[in-house]
């Protein structure tokens, strides 16, 4: 009888224990933390395209490894203020501040906002080209510099600065001949 009752009691205890057992747990909030994989292919060149019919778009993911540029100092002269609109100046200041921190993505974001306000502002396109250069996106840097020139309309200093930027971009891509051609082009604007 003793054994039986021991068994019964233990079974009972087990049953109740089953009900009451609580696993080790921290007080989890109801929201599940479903952080996605931080960035697809972080560290790789921005490549994942978001294709659409007749469209190719590059998707910018993590901040990229910035290739070390050649040691020559960047030759563009410091250009005077790019805009008379306070909003654009504020955004430019924000872009500069972000650039100073090395947060090129934030700098680009501010410049894109500025471009929505003044899409024909050649200086803004030039600044964006500089940011792309810093981000190691050389092809885009060169293209944006060309875009800047299309709005430059006789701003010789800016046109020259753009050609120097294109030269840097080409050099960074290993196109030495192209870089020299761009430098010659820049020189033609003296």
């Amino acid at each position, binding site marked *: 009888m003793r054994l039986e009752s021991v068994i*019964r009691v233990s079974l009972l205890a087990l049953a109740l224990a089953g009900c009451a057992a609580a696993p080790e747990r921290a007080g989890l909030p109801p929201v599940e933390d479903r952080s996605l994989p931080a960035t697809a292919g972080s560290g790789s060149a921005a490549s994942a395209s978001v294709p659409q019919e007749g469209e190719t778009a590059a998707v910018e993911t993590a901040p990229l490894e910035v290739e070390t540029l050649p040691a020559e100092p960047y030759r563009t002269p410091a250009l005077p203020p790019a805009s008379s609109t306070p*909003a654009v100046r504020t955004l430019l200041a924000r872009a500069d501040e972000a650039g100073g921190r090395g947060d090129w993505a*934030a700098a680009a974001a501010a410049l894109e906002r500025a471009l929505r306000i003044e899409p*024909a502002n050649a200086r803004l396109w030039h600044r964006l080209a500089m940011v792309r250069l810093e981000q190691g996106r050389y092809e885009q840097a060169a293209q944006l510099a060309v875009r800047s020139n299309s709005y430059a309309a006789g701003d010789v200093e800016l046109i020259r600065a753009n050609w120097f930027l294109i030269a840097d971009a080409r050099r960074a891509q290993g196109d030495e001949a192209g870089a020299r051609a761009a430098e010659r082009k820049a020189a033609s604007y003296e």
Partner: protein
Amino acid sequence: MASRRKAGKSSRKRTRKTTRKASRRWRFPWLRLALVALVLLGAWCVWLDVTIRSQFEGRRWALPAKVYARPLELYSGLAFSPARFEETLRSLGYRHRPFLQRPGDFSRDGARFHLYTRAFRFWDGEEPSRRLQVIFDGSRVARLALLDDGRVLDLLRLEPQRIASIYPAHKEDRILIRLEQAPPLLIQTLLAVEDRDFYRHHGISPRSVARAMLANLRAGGVVQGGSTLTQQLVKNFFLSSERSLWRKANEALMSLLLELHYSKDEILEAYLNEIYLGQDGARAIHGFGLASRFYFDRPLAELSPDQVALLVGLVKGPSYYDPRRHPQRARRRRDLVLGIMAEQGLIDTATLRRARAHTLDTVTPRPVASNAHPAFLDLVRRQLYRDYREEDLRSAGLSIFTTLDPRIQRIAERSLDSRLASLERAHGLPDASLQGALVVVGATDGEVLALVGDRHPKRAGFNRALEARRPIGSLVKPAVYLTALERPDHYTLATLLEDAPLEVPDSQGGLWTPANYDRTFRGPVLLHDALVQSLNVPTARLGLALGVDAVIDTLHRLGIDRDFRPYPSLLLGTAELTPWEVAQAYQTLAAGGFRTPLRAIRAVSAADGTPLQRYPLEVRQAVAPVPAFLLDSALQDVVREGTARALAARFGAGAGIAGKTGTTDDLRDSWFAGFDGAVLTVAWVGRDDNRPMGLTGAAGALRLWADAMAAVGITPLVLPMPEGIEIHAIDRKTGLLADKGCEDRLELPFSKGSAPRERAPCAGRGPAGWLERLFR
């Protein structure tokens, strides 16, 4: 029992044994049964335990993705009317109040606004909540200043409008709140009305049941519930209308178990987010965070006491007390709850009186369907699916920042339906026989401002803007002429083309004999005029001389990612494209040769605000600036004096609009692609069954374009002139240099050095003319 043992020894032994057995059997059967029952109960308990825990914890509060339109960015000098500003504020749920008390309030005095903005975390930074003054000067923003210290604000970014959510498959939605975020008044009211002993009981509360019964008896109706918040939470997890005893028992047990595992605060927080509070079509409204938005279109923190009371009152029966369907019941219930609030000292009598006096006006009409712009959202999804799984889109609570301009989208939707209806009336076409599409993008940045794929925009079916492949007709011609203009040694805008009968052997061994729309031939025409008047025959000749492959290459460079068969008929537009593809190609032209991939999304961030993905502005020079400028100038002339001159009549030649009409064989498709200084819009009109509808590009799509753009507002276009361009006066008849002596002359741009050197016969021959020639 002792007497039994006194029987004989052997029989006694036997009897003892049997007696013992018998007595055991007799003594313990109920105990055995009880033990079995207990074991069963234990197993059942374990099962319930596992279930409730998996519901509570393992349960994923799947959060739908939030899709936002582009935010309004205000700055001094922006062309924006006060009326539009008020409209924008109201669409964001801002309320007009005499004083700014809370974020979400605004007041207006003519051209002056005072505004208390809501904080919002964008993917690229946080916009704080601010009290501001916005002053307009006519239809322009004059000044933005902070109210607190008068400092001028250069740029204001308002929170973006939420245009859609991408729901989890089970169609539930939440706006999750932390316990700390819930207004104290809400919690106190909830406890007072639904579960006063919440912090004291262990899951079920017999005292509550008793008290509720008493209160209900006294009141003569159901005023208090006997089930605890815990029980209600359990019930919500297994939403079932079944109210059997069995279910109630299960719920009671699970409530006890829940309380064993989790703290009161955890349970309360879960309750606040879980309790069922309404229905929006197929979408279930769970949690106070979402209910606050659903009924009052404002965040929980901004609710007034009467609104809090209404929500708490809904707990008892969201359908029964639905303020939209049963306003009187809802009001009575609300007032009852307000009474309890006062009785419990949560509000004072003055507040009670004021709150009770409020009508249910603050309850908004049923919000627009969770997906108000299915065609645009379709585009967003397609662009997202490249990078995200459906599952993540529906459940990870992402914030998707799109490029949509809600105002332009609404204009586009309205214009499409109304213009199609008026076209049907004007041309005697059957009702609802026409369909159409509109794609509106930023000319320089390729951001999609609006997308309409159906004249009934709420229909989420065939998205004509993205999917309807139709022959583009004359829309292809700019590609032909661009190809030519890229060869300035051979072709300029002044080159004479032959408009004379043409026969070309086609691939089937027959002959292709293109004809002009009016079936006549003009003889030699300027290249410029052939494009501006959209003449077929000179275009075909030009295209054949260049080679169809060269034209196809141009189409590819412009951004059309499709293979084409190099048939001569391609030159007149037998290629089939979607309005979206057309928009991409014309965007390259609108941006002076710089192709920017069309984007509907700017960025995606995670539920906690961390930016996950950015879709940056990218350009690629597809066409050199000089030929692009030459072509764009000609496209301006299409509007000024060509097939689209109705636009110049409507908007004035000074607007500088550029574009191209497109008409297909038998008038089955009507196209117009046009851009101004800010925006490129592609319009298509046709029948789904592809039958002829009798409308040319100018008669159909052009009108649609004009309607939409008139409402949006035209920004004048001044094409930036690149280096290497020179302008000359040209005699229309001969394509040679003209002067005042020539009647039929026009000014044309040329790539430097490519202009004709000869003077036209009509140009001055007199001594002055000779001298001029000498000094040239």
